């Protein structure tokens, strides 16, 4: 199933690259706005709060061993490499993945998909490609944004709980976390974005013209996307275990 979707996407991407002027630019732009710009608030809030929670809990445990200064490395690696991208991906899967499935599903219910077919418009080109490209582009940026918010939360909590000044935190962070962690996070975020979009489109296109099917499709889309993100994250962790640690 995923191979078929990826094959279709590749085919449409080649068509897009060969005739970029006739590409679905407006749809891409709309999706970047909806899935990216409109998700900035929620991703920042969740990232910030998780940063605080992680910092407080870690500080307590590290203080037991007198290893409080390692909080920067612990938070840095955990957030930059794992939590930032995964949190952003899970939020986007719930927020944008469900929206994409519902949007395409409603198009089935209102016969818009049939109308497109009658007009000879390729669904893959007009519906799947813009969403996949937008999420592949937006996901790394959202991951970076969530990471920054989580680090900010962690930094403030470290200051309050351990008296670690923000200046020290900011100076110690680049030394504690190798840049390759950030590149790895960006790379896997792009894969997450692509998978969430393809999965959401797949379930949207499978919706039957009734409201029950629409609800089932949306639920299945979100659950599958989140599971897929966690599985692929585990795969990345195993494949790149020697990078940046």
């Amino acid at each position: 199933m995923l191979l078929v979707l990826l094959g279709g996407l590749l085919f449409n991407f080649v068509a897009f690259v060969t005739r970029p002027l006739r590409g679905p630019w407006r749809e891409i732009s709309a999706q970047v706005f909806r899935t990216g710009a409109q998700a900035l608030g929620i991703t920042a809030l969740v990232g910030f709060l998780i940063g605080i929670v992680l910092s407080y809990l870690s500080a307590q445990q590290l203080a037991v061993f007198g290893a409080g200064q390692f909080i920067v490395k612990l938070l840095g690696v955990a957030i930059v490499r794992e939590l930032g991208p995964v949190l952003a991906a899970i939020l986007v899967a719930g927020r944008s993945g469900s929206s994409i499935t519902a949007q395409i599903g409603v198009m089935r219910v209102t016969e818009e998909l049939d109308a497109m077919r009658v007009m000879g418009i390729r669904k893959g080109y007009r519906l799947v490609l813009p969403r996949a490209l937008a999420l592949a582009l937006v996901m790394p940026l959202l991951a970076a944004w969530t990471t920054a918010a989580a680090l900010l939360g962690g930094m403030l909590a470290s200051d309050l709980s351990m008296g670690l000044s923000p200046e020290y935190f900011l100076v110690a962070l680049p030394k504690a976390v190798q840049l390759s962690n950030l590149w790895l996070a960006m790379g896997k975020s792009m894969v997450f974005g692509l998978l969430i979009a393809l999965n959401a489109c797949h379930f949207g296109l499978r919706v039957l013209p009734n409201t029950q099917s629409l609800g089932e499709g949306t639920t299945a889309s979100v659950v599958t996307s989140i599971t897929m993100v966690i599985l692929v994250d585990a795969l990345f962790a195993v494949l790149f275990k020697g990078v940046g640690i």
Partner: protein
Amino acid sequence: MSVVVIHGLRSAFTTRGVRATIHKDLNLSIAQGEFLSIVGGSGSGKTVLLRQILGLETPIKGTVTVLGEPAAVLGRAGAASRVGMLFQHGALFSAFTVLENIAFPLRELGTLPRALIHDVAMVKMQMVGLDPSAAHKMPADLSGGMVKRVALARALVMDPPLLLLDEPTAGLDPDASDAFCTLLRSLHQELRLTVVMVTHDLDTIFELSTRIAVVADKHVIVDAPPREVIDFDHPFVRDFFRGERGHRAMEVLHSQVPGV
């Protein structure tokens, strides 16, 4: 010359493991310039028949030929330049304005300059009686009648010789329904269209049809001009055309239907 030829059609659907046959050895031929109404009870497969003419669904047996080509080929290639389709609820793209909806098939074709596409879309808007000020409205801001008109303009934007209508007056109030019927009749005559309509609305059927095909018992039981269909002896025809609603609609037939 026949625009649509359906021969030996057999259609079936499987729902929750139960296979239901919709059509069995269904034959129908639609000549150029006709206004054919397909009538039948709920679940008799009228809309399925329209979808098969469009190539959106494939029968398990039999052939559907549209303008000399198999409908399946038409469906794969996109039929907008040969067949216009008015869906029951309009099926307008909710993210596009009225003008963008109408222009979309031309924009996708990609052979006309942008300014010309705009002009053609505006002409089609006027043709279906839409005010130019509606051009930049979104579908959600339109009344039911306007949605149908926009959808009709989009269906006709590529000047197809064949127009399919799925319940064109469903959801419209009597005035809007009458106005839409008048529009359909004038378009049929002026553009010399072949029109195939699926509807339950007897007033619309009698006002517009030059021929009626009744689908019952999984095939076309009668296919003739309105007056002959009414006299046909079959339980469905008796209930549908000679019931109380039928009598009211017959008054329209007696007063104005041409060609019967």
